[in-house]
């Protein structure tokens, strides 16, 4: 393993320190908690605060989406591990401008528990908190058990919609409704060609044999739901679009936003190769691509692979998606 590491135990603190130093025009470190990143535009009096949190190793997610019209505060966990309830609590307090706080996070056991505990702890502070739990990953559970699906790159759209809605002066209830609609309108799939290694563990936690690929891979190194022979980029793109859109059931003519993210070690040019074919297939289904994002938006350390997210737009979501933001991740 050849990596830029000092002490593996310090890697998250060092990541956060470098991040806030780089982007000090947009973000700052929480004064009392070095595992909370706060937007320089927060808290704004009378505006609903937007909070998320998650494990590290997904950069630019989650911290990279802190900023204007996006996330107000982000709780930072260890690599691939939920932040503490205390960090979620501190993030909620930092984001509160008196209009309540929307916690928009992904469906993972640890995050569910820590957010639940933070929401209990916050009650004595009189801050109103409501949550939306992202579950856009199609392969992580069947359509009948959608509530069990994990949240992946669709979370970025959820945050963007939630942040933009809050910027309009909407109430907590309205922000929650829009963020919920955003994630309900998202479907994602991950495809892995190579595993990743937690520096403190020192070896990959699963293997992908040469010539094979994992379909439906999670972005914490969870193996996928099935292993197949590696195919050409076009065939893979076709499969990914099929999985996502078969689950989506969208009317022809629907406008969509598309996000293709690398998982960390896939060259960006290959993501464009995938996107070119994906866009063709998406359009063949009669859908109209309003906006596309291709790049490393939500990674998984140095995993080789990509995710595809398609969000259906409507008259409400489209202008919210187009709202200008200032955050390091875009």
């Amino acid at each position, binding site marked *: 393993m050849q990596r830029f590491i000092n002490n593996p135990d310090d890697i998250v603190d060092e990541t956060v320190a470098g991040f806030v130093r780089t982007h000090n025009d947009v973000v700052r470190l929480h004064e009392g908690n070095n595992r909370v990143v706060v937007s320089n535009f927060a808290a704004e009096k009378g505006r609903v605060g937007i909070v998320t949190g998650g494990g590290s190793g997904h950069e630019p997610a989650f911290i990279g989406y802190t900023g204007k019209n996006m996330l107000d505060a982000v709780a930072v966990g260890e690599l691939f591990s939920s932040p503490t309830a205390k960090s979620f609590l501190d993030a909620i307090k930092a984001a509160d401008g008196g209009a309540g706080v929307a916690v928009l996070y992904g469906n993972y056991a640890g995050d569910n528990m*820590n957010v639940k505990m933070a929401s209990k702890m916050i009650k004595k502070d009189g801050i109103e908190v409501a949550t939306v739990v992202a579950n856009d990953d199609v392969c992580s559970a069947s359509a009948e058990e959608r509530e069990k699906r994990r949240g992946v790159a669709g979370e970025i759209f959820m945050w963007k919609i939630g942040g933009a809605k809050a910027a309009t002066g909407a109430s907590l209830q309205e922000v929650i409704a829009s963020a919920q609609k955003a994630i309900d309108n998202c479907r994602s799939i991950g495809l892995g060609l190579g595993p990743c290694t937690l520096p403190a563990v020192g070896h990959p936690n699963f293997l992908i044999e040469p010539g094979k690929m994992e379909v439906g891979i999670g972005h914490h190194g969870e193996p996928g739901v099935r292993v197949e022979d590696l195919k050409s980029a076009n065939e893979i793109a076709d499969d990914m679009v099929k999985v996502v859109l078969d689950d989506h059931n969208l009317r022809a003519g629907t406008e969509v936003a598309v996000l293709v993210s690398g998982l960390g070690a896939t060259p960006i040019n290959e993501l464009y190769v995938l996107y070119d074919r994906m866009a063709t297939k998406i359009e063949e289904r009669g859908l109209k691509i309003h906006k596309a994002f291709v790049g490393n938006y939500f990674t998984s350390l140095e995993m080789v692979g990509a995710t595809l997210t398609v969000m259906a737009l409507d008259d409400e979501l489209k202008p919210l998606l187009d709202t200008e933001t200032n955050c390091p991740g875009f």
Partner: protein
Amino acid sequence: MQGIPNKGAGKIVADIAEVIVSNKAYLSEIDGKIGDGDHGINMAKGFGRAAERLDPDGTLTEAMEILSDVLMSEIGGSMGPLYGMMFSDMAEALGDSETIDAESFTAMLQAGLDGIQGIGNAKVGDKTLMDALSPALDALKAANAGGKSFPEALDAMKAAAAVGRDSTIDMVAKLGRSARLGERSRGVLDAGATSCCMILTAFADSITARLD
């Protein structure tokens, strides 16, 4: 009734921490087969930090409170809140009891199990730490009811925890990250059940050693 003084039993938590820290690599290895391989790292970090901070001459109640604080405010993940709640509720149940005996220990473990159920929703058979904890508590209660001595009851608890831990090998995970794998999660131990069995075993050994 056989028992040990609560005062000075803080050392039991240090003994548990020693077991967890020395099994750091093993716990990560089994977690890595169906999870992301960080269970040992986070457990060792949490229990190790608590061991450095606790007063070995203090009470078990105080030591469990310190451990719970570290797990909940510094570790996070899933195990932070789960074991954090377990030790917090066990500390509350033991409270200012002067003696740790079969009765107070059983009540303490029951409170720990209730605490975990309050936050986690896991049932026996879901391939989680509950598969070690729940049968261990049942065995402890049965031994008490059967008139066994405290060390015999602790032995029964230990044995049931190990059987429970091993039962997870043939289970399909229903909760947590490994649940996403369905059938592919079958055939390996659950890391949470394994660490829970270590905790219960260390509890039993450490108490038994002090009873003599």
